[in-house]
């Protein structure tokens, strides 16, 4: 089990799009080395939560990352602290090549040898990256683009990786492959993961802790096996 030291602590986190408040003050804890799932229906605020954490969406409240307040930091500075974000739609740099996407992932690393070492390591997880490194990333299949987005996020040697619906639109076999890799990354490299998912069953099987969002509020939270084991909760909140 991961040690129970908080890597990320969000308190009374609000987020708004113009006049409309989309997140009404949530509290969220992500322990060092853990995998935390963020569940909920479409429009419940999963994406907004992740965007609020990185600063891509206007937010207020408090977000401590490794005991440091990040509210007020621009997204590029949040990234530099070691929070990688795989956004909704994967954020593929589609006209750039696969290698250029990965190189951009390592943008914050100043040492070219470290970039090289990261690349070698990721090629071990995703061998096809090496074969297709010169191809435009936009020509990859959806599943490959998702894996590329994860690989790109891992290039910066993040301490925390935020994943927004990595399973969206992908075949089940691809999803289980991606989740398997996430588990490996978490176990072997100690990368902490916060994953927003609609696929509750898969996400609960992966995660240690889970939060269920409902219209911008936390409706429920707890260890994932408790949530998955409670039929009442599964039926009313998770839809399976």
């Amino acid at each position, binding site marked *: 089990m991961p040690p129970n030291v908080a890597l990320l602590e969000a308190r009374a986190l609000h987020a708004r799009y113009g006049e409309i408040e989309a997140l009404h003050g949530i509290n969220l804890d992500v322990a060092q080395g853990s995998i935390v799932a963020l569940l909920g229906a479409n429009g419940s605020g999963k994406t907004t939560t992740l965007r609020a954490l990185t600063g891509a969406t206007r937010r207020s409240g408090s977000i401590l990352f490794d005991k440091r307040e990040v509210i007020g930091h621009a997204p590029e500075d949040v990234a530099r602290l070691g929070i990688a974000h795989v956004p909704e739609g994967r*954020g593929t740099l589609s006209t750039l090549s696969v290698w250029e996407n990965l190189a951009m992932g390592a943008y914050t690393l100043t040492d070219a040898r470290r970039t090289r070492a990261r690349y070698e390591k990721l090629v071990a997880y995703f061998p096809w990256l090496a074969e297709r490194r010169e191809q435009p990333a*936009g020509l990859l299949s959806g599943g490959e683009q998702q894996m590329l987005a994860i690989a790109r996020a891992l290039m910066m040697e993040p301490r925390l990786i935020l994943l927004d619906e990595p399973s969206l639109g992908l075949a089940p076999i691809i999803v289980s492959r991606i989740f398997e890799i996430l588990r490996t990354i978490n176990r072997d490299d100690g990368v902490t993961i916060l994953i927003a998912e609609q696929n509750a069953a898969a996400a609960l099987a992966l995660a240690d802790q889970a939060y269920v969002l409902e219209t911008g509020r936390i409706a429920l939270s707890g260890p994932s096996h408790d949530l998955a084991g409670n039929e009442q909760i599964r039926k009313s909140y998770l839809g399976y």
Partner: protein
Amino acid sequence: MHDLAQQIVSGLATGSIFASMALALVLIHRSMGVINFAQGEMAMFTTYLAWQFSQQGMPLWLAFPLTIAIAFAGAVALERIVVRPVERAAPLTIVILTLGLLIAFNGLAGWIWGYVIKAFPSPFPTTPLHFGSVAFSSQDLGIIAVSLASLGAISVFFKKTKVGLAMRAAALYPESSRTLGVRVGWMLALGWGMAAAVGALSGLMIAPVVLLDPNMMQGILVYAFAAAVLGGIESPLGAVVGGLMLGVGLNLIGAYVPFIGTDLQLTMAFAIIVVILLFRPAGLFGRRRLLRV
């Protein structure tokens, strides 16, 4: 045949000026989605600086690099101070701002240096170069060599360096780039700096030909715009090829089609803009965007 070869080389020389200015326009357009109408006037202004330096007795080999460095630093500052407040405004707002800069630089140059046309020293020898029995103007060959070398260097910079890659990513995918830790605003400023440096170089190259006056770059900017549209406003390579094609094409038409001659060249440039926008808006090198959802 000799005449044709000379016309082509001379067309390539003006074409490489169009190509450099077109590249400057494309660099800004890619990152901001607008044409910087002040690009030509910025080049004109820095050319005056070089003239001033050489009047003070500074040798050209020092005055030219110094001018280009000032153009770069000045444009970075201009972007950070003047353009940044409207960076996320509607395109029309930014266009109006660049038009304002056009008028400001033009007026400022006239106010400081006056409107009397000045001769500008050429860095190239006046004796022609002979290849077999054909003589080419050293000036033309020099312009072509310097322009192509600088365009080549820029291309290597964008393809092979980390900052070049980040500039491309920031221009095309600002939000994704931010999540990767790229300071997109500074990349934009660097783009302005590079565009101004390329522009300054074309000003320095063309000033001995068209002579120095506050309006010297206005026609050239129209040709550059035509070249950029011809090649594809999204494509740096297209801008360069478009510029060279336009230079050679206009020169040949000027020499061999008496009906159009040199009087209607600017009209031809406008005609090219209209025809391309009507029939092939992406230009010759414009790519359809790759997208998979």
